[in-house]
């Protein structure tokens, strides 16, 4: 089908359309669709991962927040415990009653407890650890100082205790503890704030990427869907067109089959019925000549001879036409055929039929071609018979069979040195009933070369001739040059 050199059969518009529509097989479209879906899929996966990470971070941050809040609470408790310790100590100093020492005693345990908890909470943050260590050391000093004042009150009375308090060491220590704890709190709060800000930023950015990614994926999926829809539409159209064409083709095939059957019946009738009257004409003319020759005289007998010859000629014409139609209908069965040996056989037949002629025959040996042996025999027979006929008036007739050279290397040729013809009539050479010589000069029906051309075309080959008047003719033919019709 895809033979572009076949210029003899115009492409039907419908078939051309079908070929155009077959463009749906175009791989670039498929690639585009697959690419669209792949990119969308990748985007969805990226969005998923981003969201997962963002949420994971949120969960982690939330845990950190809880941690920070625990730290803050513990810090608060620690400061509270120091205040309680001081409050209890002061109450005891003022009153001297042991019962006032209870908050102090509770706070001492509380301080140790909160310090242990805080150490755990700030573990890993070296700044905070450092600060906590400072606070712990100061706390220890503070508690020692508190205990010293309590001891002084218990052993030496209020004035001794008051003297130590008035010295201000305790207050100074307490101020330092306050300052450092405030620092711890500030530090933890700033961490918390930073995390909140980062979280907001991260949430916003993942929101942005989710929105953008979803948008892009949606657009890509939409485009791919449109392409697929278009593809399906085109495919459906192509299929329906193909189905239409097939239906048309089937109809044509049926028509053709019917026509062929009709043609066959016609040929059968021609072969049988047209010849019968010719036989009557020829037979009864002959009878007339034999039975009444004396009566009709010399001239009458001559007329009868002409009638017989005409009937004969028409008989041959019918036979040639039947052959022409037969080569069109016959099945083509190609096998390797030795053209050279066929040529020699045919030349032997010609010599036998016309033994008084002296013709030199020069065949190239063993030229083989893929052809239908019966049909190619008809080709060779016609061409050799022509060569034989048109060299009849040459004293030293010569016929060649061989293979062309140069650009004609694929072609076979049959060359003679006979009557030739004028090249300006060469277009008439292969038409049925076209003759370049008068019947009196060289008899013939004008069907032989038409038959040759038809057979060669059926083989997918080409036939042509070169000649000069009175200087012979060369007939070239190729087989299988293009796809056979």
């Amino acid at each position, binding site marked *: 089908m895809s033979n572009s050199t076949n210029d003899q059969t115009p492409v039907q518009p419908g078939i051309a359309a079908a070929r155009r529509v077959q463009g749906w097989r175009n791989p670039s479209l498929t690639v585009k669709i697959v690419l669209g879906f792949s990119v969308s899929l990748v985007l969805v996966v990226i969005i998923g991962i981003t969201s997962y990470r963002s949420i994971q971070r949120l969960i982690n941050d939330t845990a950190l927040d809880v941690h920070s809040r625990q730290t803050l609470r513990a810090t608060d408790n620690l400061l509270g415990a120091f205040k309680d310790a001081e409050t209890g100590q002061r109450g005891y100093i003022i009153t001297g009653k042991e019962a006032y020492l209870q908050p102090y005693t509770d706070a001492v345990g509380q301080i140790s407890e909160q310090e242990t908890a805080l150490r755990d909470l700030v573990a890993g943050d070296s700044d905070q650890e450092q600060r906590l260590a400072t606070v712990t050391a100061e706390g220890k000093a503070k508690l020692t100082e508190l205990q010293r004042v309590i001891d002084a009150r218990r052993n030496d009375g209020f004035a001794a205790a008051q003297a130590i308090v008035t010295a201000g060491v305790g207050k100074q220590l307490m101020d330092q503890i306050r300052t450092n704890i405030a620092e711890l709190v500030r530090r933890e709060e700033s961490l918390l704030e930073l995390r909140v800000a980062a979280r907001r930023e991260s949430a916003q950015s993942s929101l942005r990427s989710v929105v953008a990614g979803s948008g892009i994926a949606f657009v890509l999926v939409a485009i791919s869907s449109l392409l697929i829809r278009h593809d399906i539409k085109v495919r459906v159209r192509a299929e329906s067109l193909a189905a239409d064409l097939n239906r048309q083709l089937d109809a044509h095939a049926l028509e053709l089959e019917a026509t062929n059957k009709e043609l066959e019946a016609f040929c059968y009738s021609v*072969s*049988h019925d047209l010849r019968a*009257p*010719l*036989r009557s004409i*020829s*037979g009864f003319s002959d*009878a007339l000549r034999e039975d009444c020759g004396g009566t009709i005289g010399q001239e009458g007998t001559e007329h009868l001879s002409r009638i017989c010859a005409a*009937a*004969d000629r028409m008989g041959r014409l019918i036979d040639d036409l039947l052959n022409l139609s037969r080569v069109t209908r016959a099945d083509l069965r190609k096998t390797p055929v030795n053209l050279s040996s066929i040529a020699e056989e045919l030349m032997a037949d010609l010599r036998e039929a016309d033994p008084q002629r002296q013709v030199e025959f020069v065949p190239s040996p063993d030229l083989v071609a893929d052809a239908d042996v019966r049909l190619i025999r008809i080709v060779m027979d016609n061409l050799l018979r022509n060569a034989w006929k048109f060299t009849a008036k040459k004293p030293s007739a010569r016929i060649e069979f061989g293979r062309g050279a140069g650009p004609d290397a694929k072609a076979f040729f049959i060359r003679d040195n006979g009557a030739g013809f004028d090249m300006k009539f060469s277009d008439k050479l292969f038409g049925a009933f076209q003759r370049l010589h008068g019947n009196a000069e060289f008899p013939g029906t004008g069907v032989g070369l038409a038959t040759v051309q038809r057979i060669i075309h059926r083989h997918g080959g080409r036939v042509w001739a070169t000649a000069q008047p009175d200087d012979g003719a060369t007939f070239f033919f190729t087989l299988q040059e293009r796809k056979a019709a």
Partner: protein
Amino acid sequence: MNNKVILLVEDNPDDEALTRRALVKNQIRNELMVAHDGDEAICWIFGTGQYEGRDVNQTPTLILLDLKLPKVEGLEVLRRIRADARTRLLPVVILTSSKEEQDLVRGYGLGANSYIRKPVDFSQFSEAIRQLGLYWLVLNEAPPEAVGLAA
């Protein structure tokens, strides 16, 4: 040369006349029975229909059979001849205008002894009849009658 009947199955009176002329011209003097269509030929050979009561043991020595015939076509006549034990060995020569391959193949396939295409030229036709008579009536040894009947 025997004197038995030659059966010519031919619908065209011109061809009939020309065949007669060719036979006479070639000194073939056997009685000529002419059937003008396939049905008449079958009736005559098997003694049925219009030829009811004919002695069917009087078989023709040669049947010249055209193919394109009214009523029953030539190849069917040949099939019937070959299908019957009494006639299956009779020499049948197809004498016709057609040289379509299908006719040749089917003719020989059904057991024709020869296939001759009538030439347009009368002298060629006459020569064909001469050779035909020489071969089938003189040179050819016919099978013994008993074989045909017993088989």
